[in-house]
């Protein structure tokens, strides 16, 4: 069984047809890269997978999205539970206007953990997993805004890890980061791969080849090509894929 599977998924924002007949099957514990030029629907796609698009007033979808075999748009699905299981990291680092510590603790607190000792441990653990602990351990009380962009992004990853999701989706997590931060986050993805199913949106094709096992190329809301990363980059089946990966646009 696939962890995530879509069947003829179509997404509309009001009149606009944003995603067209998307069929994709994602195995557990793999890293899938979503690539494609700006505006092709990458973000919309992953936001459909954890029903984040529900907050957009005129969002509408057709088709099915299965998570562990269950359609997540079924009326009896608990969205809160779903989002707990499918964590998400956004393109722009978006820490809360709270302290570093409270940012990571946030997820635990809302899920009912009150024992401060457990929270403290989990915060440390998550920050370590996100390769941020050493840099912030002496300033956990400081505002998250005092961190650099790369650190903020890793903080957001730590915040996501803290609630122990099964899937982590990242929307261009490195696009605003410097080389060193980028390297750190890529290393992190390598480390997380064995425990989590990871979906990463990126505009950096080299990054896609470095971190992912599968790659999906979106264009104008269509899934043009999907398969093992190496195959997609070395011998693309579709002309448009080839044009894109050779840098003819985007």
């Amino acid at each position, binding site marked *: 069984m696939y962890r995530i599977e879509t069947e003829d998924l179509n997404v509309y924002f009001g009149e606009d047809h944003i995603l067209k007949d998307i069929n994709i099957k994602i195995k557990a514990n793999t890293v899938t890269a979503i690539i494609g030029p700006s505006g092709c629907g990458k973000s919309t796609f992953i936001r459909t997978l954890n029903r984040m698009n529900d907050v957009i007033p005129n969002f509408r979808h057709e088709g099915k999205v299965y998570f562990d075999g269950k359609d997540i748009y079924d009326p009896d699905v*608990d969205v*809160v539970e779903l989002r*707990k299981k499918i964590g998400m990291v956004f393109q722009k680092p978006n820490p809360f206007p709270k302290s570093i510590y409270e940012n990571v603790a946030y997820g*635990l607190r*809302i*899920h*009912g*953990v009150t024992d401060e000792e457990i929270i403290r441990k989990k915060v440390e653990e998550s920050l370590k997993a996100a390769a941020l602990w050493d840099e912030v351990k002496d300033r956990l009380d400081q505002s998250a805004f005092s961190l650099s962009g790369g650190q903020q992004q890793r903080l957001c990853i730590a915040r996501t890890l803290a*609630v122990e999701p099964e899937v982590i989706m990242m929307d261009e997590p490195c696009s605003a980061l410097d080389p060193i931060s980028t390297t750190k986050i890529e290393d992190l993805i390598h480390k997380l791969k064995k425990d989590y199913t990871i979906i990463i949106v990126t505009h950096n094709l080299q990054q896609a080849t470095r971190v992912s096992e599968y790659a999906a190329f979106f264009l104008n809301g269509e899934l043009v090509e999907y398969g093992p990363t190496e195959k997609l980059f070395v011998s693309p089946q579709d002309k448009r894929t080839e044009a894109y990966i050779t840098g003819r646009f985007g």
Partner: protein
Amino acid sequence: MIKRRFVSPQIVQKIMNSILWASGILTIIILIIIIGYILINGLPVINLQFLTESPIEAGRAGGIAPMIVSSIYVTLTAIIVATPLGVGAAIYLAEYAAETSLIKVIRFTTQTLAAIPSIVYGLFGLAFFVVFCGLGFSLLSGGLVLALMALPTILYTAESSIKAVPESYREASLALGATKWQTIYKVVLPAAAPGIATGVILGMARALEEAAAVMFVVGSATDMPYTIFDPGRPLPLHLYLLAVEGISLKNAYGTAAVLVILVLLITITTNILIEKHREKMMGR
């Protein structure tokens, strides 16, 4: 993750949902009942005669035409005086002033002006405009007092809408070789216009509804005023006197309804105008 709470967040969510709906609806109902009550009692009083005639016997009979004219005079005076001052100051604060101590002073001053009770403005108007400046009891004195009261509202709203104009517009203009003032005048102000208009409307609404501040400065003559140098009696003051002096409860309701309708009309038309402007600018 283990759950460690007896009431699940989902349940809390449901409870809070109900509380929010209940309090939201309740508040709105209460507020609307008041308007409804005024309108139900006041609308039957309103007819062409009521709107176009002068009051007879201090308002026991007849209409409220001089009060409508008085209200228009004082409100327009207030807006005409306060708008250039408020918008000018807003431009200065938003575009020219670095965070110097002068700015902090002006900001605090504006806050203070906004917080001064209207009755104090009324006393000031009496001592300054009426007596010191020799304007006497007149709609001009009233309009000037109201201008002072509307000023902080206009200033504050205009400043924040000017600040909300995206930096990219300014940069685009400057990069084309525009001077700072050209940029402000041709790009920033048009883009901020809807917000500034809102501020002016709010200031206008404040001037239109004020009774206490003008009580001691307009004189409360019931005659039709011809110029702003004449004394007059704006609608809210007329309403207060009608209700409190017990001249005519029926006409008090009518006057209240006219005021409510005026405020409604102003809000609705400006909302429409602003929407139109936005449509034209943004193409949506």
